[in-house]
């Protein structure tokens, strides 16, 4: 009876009704209205760090697959990517385009939410960290989009070249348009610059963005823009905070995957959501590339697994399994620094930088320091080591694109499948991958020419 009286009282007192209905329907739900909630979105590494598409690596020349393996691949999109054909997107969620833009949108939701949060002085560090991280994730995604879907950066034409859609807010009603290539890269640089001022020197975990990660990405971006002065500045800023290198002599070749995850070189950990063709069981390392590693070069045994039939697979991921690492690590920054110095004419310094990395790669006591007599020979040495060190980091496609604009470093790619030879000459239109047709159909954006 009591309960009935209570019921009547509740029903009749409409004033309490609003409160009664304000209870959340699911305890797990929340609004992104606090710094903690925003940080939680940025800390969901499955989306933010672990599902980068590896389309550039699939298109690049670090590996090949035999015809039988190729024919057995179920994904036509992956097969077409391998052969630089037109239809390279499965028209479904999630594909390489949506994976990158999902991160952009989460970053935008976070940035918008943070704008509305007035943080107490005690929370300022947390607020800064969240905003810096959101900016960095957005910039990193934009950089990958630019690396895949645009031509190489040329300072003279960048203002009129087609760039990428720059989505800077979470309004999904906004129609996507392509910014110029210059505006695209400027946006990336601006985001990273702003992120660097906000992020801490040392993150609580390398899944999280940090100041060195922002510097490293800026060095990478400026290098792709052929702006060697700035690339050098930021490479130095990175190394001032995160210069540690692994000594490969300390690693065990007996382990299935010798490189420890989250090792000292890593400043930000991200990986590729491995496309089927890049699985350890399928992708065979380019034979000439494998042979180019010196017998005393420890990477020859630590990077590669002998399949027993004269073939080698890659096992050197900084993720310590078959999934490829594509984050920011010190070895890349040493190589950026060395390249920029060489390009700026500082041959000796550039060789010193290269050697400080390489001595950790060679069997103790066997390393003979590299020397170069000219800028060109220095660059050749550095770019050769760059390719060997950064194999399967999803950097090669962007490097090919960038270096093909220079007569000294041009490469023509070949694939032979089912008796047909496919060729990709330098500066071919196909270096800017086709945007998914569904995206073009809805947005009306201009497709890359083939």
């Amino acid at each position, binding site marked *: 009876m009591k309960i009935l009286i*209570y*019921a009547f009282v509740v029903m009749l007192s409409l004033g309490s009704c609003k409160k009664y209905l304000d209870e959340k329907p699911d305890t797990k739900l929340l609004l992104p209205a606090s710094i903690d909630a925003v940080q939680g979105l940025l800390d969901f590494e*499955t989306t933010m760090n672990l599902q980068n598409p590896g389309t550039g690596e699939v298109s690049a020349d670090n590996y090949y697959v*035999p015809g039988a393996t190729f024919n057995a691949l179920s994904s036509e999109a992956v097969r077409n990517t391998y052969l630089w054909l037109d239809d390279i997107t499965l028209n479904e969620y999630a594909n390489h385009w949506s994976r990158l833009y*999902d991160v952009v949108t*989460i970053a935008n939701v976070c940035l918008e939410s943070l704008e509305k949060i007035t943080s107490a002085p005690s929370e300022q560090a947390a607020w800064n960290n969240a905003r810096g991280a959101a900016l960095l994730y957005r910039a990193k995604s934009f950089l990958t989009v630019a690396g895949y879907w645009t031509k190489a950066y040329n300072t003279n034409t960048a203002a009129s070249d087609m760039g990428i859609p720059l*989505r800077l807010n979470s309004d999904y009603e906004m129609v996507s348009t392509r910014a110029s290539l210059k505006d695209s890269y400027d946006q990336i640089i601006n985001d990273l610059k702003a992120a660097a001022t906000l992020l801490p020197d040392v993150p609580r975990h390398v899944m999280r963005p940090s100041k060195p990660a922002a510097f490293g990405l800026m060095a990478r971006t400026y290098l792709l823009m052929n702006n060697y002065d700035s690339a050098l500045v930021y490479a130095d800023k990175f190394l001032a905070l995160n210069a540690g290198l692994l000594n490969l002599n300390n690693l065990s070749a007996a382990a299935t995957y010798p490189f420890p995850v989250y090792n000292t070189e890593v400043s930000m950990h991200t990986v590729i959501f491995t496309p089927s063709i890049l699985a350890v069981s*399928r992708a065979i390392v380019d034979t000439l590339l494998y042979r180019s590693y010196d017998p005393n070069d420890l990477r020859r045994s630590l990077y590669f*697994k002998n399949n027993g039939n004269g073939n080698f697979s890659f096992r050197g991921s900084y993720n310590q399994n078959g999934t490829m690492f594509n984050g920011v690590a010190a070895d890349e920054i040493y190589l950026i620094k060395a390249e920029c110095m060489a390009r700026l004419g500082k041959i000796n310094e550039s060789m010193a930088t290269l050697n400080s990395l390489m001595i950790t790669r060679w069997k103790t006591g066997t390393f003979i320091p590299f020397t170069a007599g000219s800028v060109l020979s220095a660059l050749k040495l550095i770019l050769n080591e760059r390719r060997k060190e950064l194999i399967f980091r999803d950097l090669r496609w962007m490097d090919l694109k960038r270096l093909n604009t220079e007569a000294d470093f041009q490469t023509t790619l070949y694939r032979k499948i089912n008796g047909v030879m496919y060729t990709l000459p330098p500066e071919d239109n196909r270096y800017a991958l086709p945007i998914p047709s569904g995206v073009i159909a809805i947005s009306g954006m201009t497709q890359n020419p083939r």
Partner: protein
Amino acid sequence: MKYFIWLFFLLEICCRGMAQKTGQPDTAKKLKTMALDSVIVFNNGYQSIPKDRATGSFTHIDNATLNLQVGPNILSRLESVTSSVAISKKGGGMPAITVRGISTINGPTAPLIILDNFPYEGDINAINPNLIESITILKDATAASIWGTRAGNGVIVINTKKGKYYQPLTIDFNSTIQVVGKPDLTKLHTIAPSDFIEVEQLLFSKGYYNNQLTSAAHPVISPVVELLDRQVRGLITPAEVNEKIAALRNTDVKEVLKNSYYSNALNQQYALSFSGGSAKMAWSAGGGYDYNLSGLDEVFKRKTLRFENSFTPVNRLKLSASVYLTGTDTRTGKDDYGTQDYLYPYSDLYNRKGKPLAFGRTYRQAYTDTLGGGRLLDWGYYPTEDDQHHYSTMQTTNLLVNVGVHYTVWKGFSVDAKYQSELQHAQKRTLNDEQSYTARYYVNLFSQINPVNGLVTYNVPQGGVLDITNSDIRVNNYRGQCNYAGKFGKHRLNALAGTEIREIHNTDETYRTYGYSTDLAIGSITDFKNRYPLITTGELSQIPGGENQFTDQLKRYVSFYANAAYSYDNRYTFTLSARRDASNLFGVATNQKWTPLWSAGAGWQISNAGFYRSAFLPYLKLRATYGYTGNADPSRSGVVTVFAFNNSSVTGFPGYRIRQFPNPHLRWEQVAIANFGIDFGTANNRISGSVEYYRKKGIDLFANALVDQTAGIASTGVVKNVASIRGSGVDISISTLNTNSAFKWGTSFIFSYNTDYVTQSYLTNTSGIFYINDGSTYAALKGKPVHAVLSLPWAGLEHNTGNPQGYVNGKVSTDYAALTSNSLTVDDLQYNGPGLPQFFGSISNDFSWKGFDLHINLSYKFRYFFKRKPLNYGSLFLNDKTSTSDFGSRWQNPGDEIYTDVPSLIYPLISKRDDFYTQSSAVVEKGDHIRIQFVNCAYNFSFKRKNDALHGWKMQCFVNGSNLGILWRANKHGLDPDYAVNAIPPSKAFALGFRLFFQ
């Protein structure tokens, strides 16, 4: 049988004793009660409306009709015995039960289930059909709008058996034993063993398996490929291989399963109820027991207990209370065919000596046999034995407690207060004991063998794996209601107004224990945090299952409702009903929480009019209603919402995901319904029935808006109130009494017609390929039904190659990129027809002579389409072991295209060729069919003579047959369109039953 006789006499003795004590009421009152009982009363959960004064569209299903079928689930007994209710067993996106078709595109499709006045939130299987008196279905707005935002899909009101005042002691007992035959797997259209072997041999010769055979992941290799590989490696002679493969060709896994795996299913039901009443009290008590054992040794047990009492201590006050307690127990059995991914079409389950064979499930057997040098546990999976070691049990306890007070304040004014509490606790335990495959797999996978001394370290503790999920539902309902009923001369007014508060709280939690010992009920501590190397690949991995899962959800509704009916001289009736609902649905702005829904109706009983004189049609009534019901989806929200996942296993930080992007204009869906009905009856009800025509309009329906993936919201999509649909239909039910002598023959015709089409949809000018559909999910294409079957136009097979052909710009083409291109528009698609039947119903004949009663029910469904399982070479190559037998009739030589539509086999695969064929109209089939729904044959004994020892008792024995088969079907492949493409249609089932009734 002994059991029955015992029980029978026991009941007899105790009931007679009780009958004497309570005393029989006087005959006049008894007759009055009985007379009232025969009037059909519709119960909508808030009030009881006599049929004569109802204007809305109600269907009343009585106890006898519910007893015609013997299914253990109450809703399954509605199939084919009433108009407008369609039941689908297809699963997937098909709504399982619909009332008058579809009212929504993207919102919830299930009708609201009311059990004794309040919405029922528990497991529908917990309701024992043997304790149900009747069901009322509320179909139009006037009938249903009193349920407001949850009534958009119709309402099914279930009424349990209750005692009545002045009712003499009544005893009702029944028992049913049903036997369901083994499934006839040989009728399934799956690829023949020899065909499957042929494909494997071809792929092997092309090097297709090379990657798998050398893969460091050591995937499962089929027996045939293993043989071919051993031959290549010189481990076995070609002659031996040929001999072994020849033996495999002659083994059919479906025969093996039928003969030595499946058994007959046995379902038993027992129910007993007592009821009675005096001038001040009415009571009933009952209980039931069900025990079902499936052909795969799955167990379902249900125990129900129910007690209900109404008490009138003083004249104006009525108190009522009821308690309904249900316990169900289920236990899983063996794997069903089709879920057994380890079985090849040519697999056997036993070796020649009759010992169970082991299968590889994750890794190649040749690899696991030598891995670990004998120091590991067996890696084999034994399908015939594993169900003894791996099973889930589910125990559910559901308690419903209902109390109510009814007090007549003054003359026709009364107040009602009701409270109901529902508690359901369920515990699911999935046990993989020490000997189960799963436990052995995890223990092995995380074992480390010391290469020096051979000692094994077990990172997953040895023993079983136990997963436990506890879930609780707590529901509180409070209702306060004022009623008025008055009669002034020829005017009659009935009105009610009330308010209701409802709260549903769901919680559940799941956790896992390794090293579980069944004997001792103890588990082991497990390190879920650190990564350990897998013994197979050396990759580092965390031991799975370390993250306990929790759910905590709370839904609250506050509602106000009112309803009035005015009738004049029993001729004209007008009804008006209105309701407002509010809830705590997250993010919906407060001003949109309160959605008013209303309805109005009018009824005219012509036969009571002064001028009406018809000997032919003594009863005739016209009805018309219009109004709104609503459909709310608790998962939608108007603002951006974030969902908390578990803390990251890597970083330890909490990780959140965006669950919904902002959508500030979100509203509830509304369904407007106009209903016109005629009820009629000829003299002595020789022909009686009703014809109803309705139109409905769903507005503000939720639909997915298509957004460019660059917007970054493809993971959740965005849903808006942008769509609308229209529907219309006819429900006819006619009963005829063909002969009414010693031999009685009655027929009842049930016919439903329902169409719907989308009038507004956001997805208008986009790629046609998105709309291709087998009818199971909504296509939401303007001008087409919500569930439409759409496909790519088919131009047959090419003469020289057997390639499938379609049309590009009106020309026959094999350009598969163009044929499946995103630039196709919806105009390029072929609309095959609706995916849900537009005409359905049944014809049943009831013959009785002396004590015999024979009831035959035929059901039909017309005008709908489905897709048969197409031959997909891509999935066949990926080892689809239940690929279709169409492979056998594929194109092989020029000329074959005349009699087959199945494309030729090519290698390498062109996946777009598969995409085109599997989406083409070549695989669309007509669903039309007629089936024997059930046959029921009963013999009734009654003991009418006063001096009979069993005076007052009635007895009935019956035999019931169901799943008796399809009489006619439109498709030529022998497919049963009511079941999903791969499902095994149930076998014929026969039940033997016994009922006892005493009053």
